[in-house]
């Protein structure tokens, strides 16, 4: 851990949904160009946490957030942060693939367009580049004008990843990206994440512990809104320090 460059530094983060104290004093340093997996039973706060990282919780009425989240030295919890450019820098891929009801090309070009890119040639290049990086190009290069909804679930999810890449983020948040996919599509996404790690910092929420063990470099275990343990993945799954981590990963509760 000491040799890593820290991309996201979280200090004393607390989150409330109305009366419900959903995250309690979270402190974690997420390293750059690494895959960090967040695991824990349902309701432990892992999705709430990932949604703090690009201020998605702002959209839920009654939420209150305290503490610091430093990304590139800037505290992104501050009121005056421009959340649109924040979400450009920190992209997100969701549980269910959610392509727009438009062509494959327009799905990818949408982000760059709203950020002001109108040059047709540059857009073509961005689309090709993003699809290649998302390992989808070879499967769709001949039908970019077809509706994105005609793609299979696994292809749609890779399209959503390509759409995220098109606006050149630095960090990508994955919220259970494979839970709606079959095993083959799942391994494609997992391979892709490992490939993407070279250029991006990745944070993934997963209910699938084996997935966390397979793809991630670091794993954080959450329980009842607290961060219980954070360590190198191979350490955490072989010799966890905390008893509750041990009990959870060996299936003794949860």
């Amino acid at each position, binding site marked *: 851990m000491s040799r890593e460059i820290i991309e996201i530094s979280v200090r004393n983060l607390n989150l409330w949904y109305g009366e419900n104290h959903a995250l309690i004093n979270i402190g974690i340093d997420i390293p750059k160009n690494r895959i960090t997996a967040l695991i824990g039973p349902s309701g432990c706060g892992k999705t709430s946490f990932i949604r703090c990282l690009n201020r998605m919780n702002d959209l839920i009425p009654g939420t209150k957030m305290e503490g610091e989240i430093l990304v590139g030295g800037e505290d992104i919890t501050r009121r005056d942060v421009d959340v649109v450019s924040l979400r450009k820098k920190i992209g997100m891929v969701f549980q269910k693939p959610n392509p727009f009801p438009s062509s494959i090309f327009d799905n990818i070009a949408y982000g760059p367009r709203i950020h002001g890119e109108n040059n047709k040639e540059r857009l073509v290049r961005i689309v090709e580049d993003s699809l290649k990086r998302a390992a989808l190009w070879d499967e769709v290069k001949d039908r970019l004008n077809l509706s994105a909804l005609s793609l299979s679930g696994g292809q749609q999810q890779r399209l959503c990843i390509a759409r995220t890449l098109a606006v050149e983020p630095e960090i990508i948040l994955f919220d259970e990206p494979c839970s709606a996919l079959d095993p083959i599509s799942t391994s494609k996404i997992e391979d892709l994440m490992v490939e993407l790690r070279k250029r991006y910092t990745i944070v993934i929420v997963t209910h699938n512990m084996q997935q966390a063990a397979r793809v991630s470099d670091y794993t954080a275990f959450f329980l009842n809104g607290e961060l219980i343990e954070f360590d190198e993945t191979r350490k955490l799954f072989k*010799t966890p320090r905390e008893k509750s981590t041990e009990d959870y990963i060996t299936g003794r509760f949860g």
Partner: protein
Amino acid sequence: MAREQYHNQLRKLKEDTIRMGNLAKDNVLWATISLKNHDPELAKRVIDAGSEIDELYAQIEDTCFALLALQQPMARDLRTIGAILKIIIDLERIGDIALEIARITIATLEEDHIKPLVDIPRMAEICSGMIASSMEAFKNADEGLARETAKRDDEVDALFDQVRRELITYMIEDPKTIKNASHLTFVARYLERCGDHVTNICESVVYMVTGERIDLN
């Protein structure tokens, strides 16, 4: 508790390993007693129990691989299965040692031992005591007991040196003792190896408990 079936399988796996340990422990002792008393019946019993050890070995190994493939064990469960895969190899070797000694019993039925056997049965007693303690340490995940048990290997090594020197003296003095003395040297050497296998088992138990690789030799 979640994953009840899986945890039952894991418990059964540990019980089978301990059963294999008990068989190996008895066999080492019986084989040596059969040698001391020129007892072909007891030697035969050792050989029969040997095939039971081999069957348990195959069965435990199969279950370990099935659990690894199907249940993706983690943390202490993973270390336990890893430790068991190693422990059963050592137990199987100990079983083989007992068989070798029982075969020597049968090969030497017609000849008198050149001296009354004292130190060799003592070695076997220490070894079987060590196996029992190592199984106790395995059962209770008792790291301290595992470390203590491994220390007793020094006694076995010291006895081996003593027996070997004594037998060499016999052979130098009277070449007619060579046949029996070389059989007994082999037995002592087998028992010395037995102590080393128990030491390995103790190391596996420490790994299972702490995740730490250590050398207890």
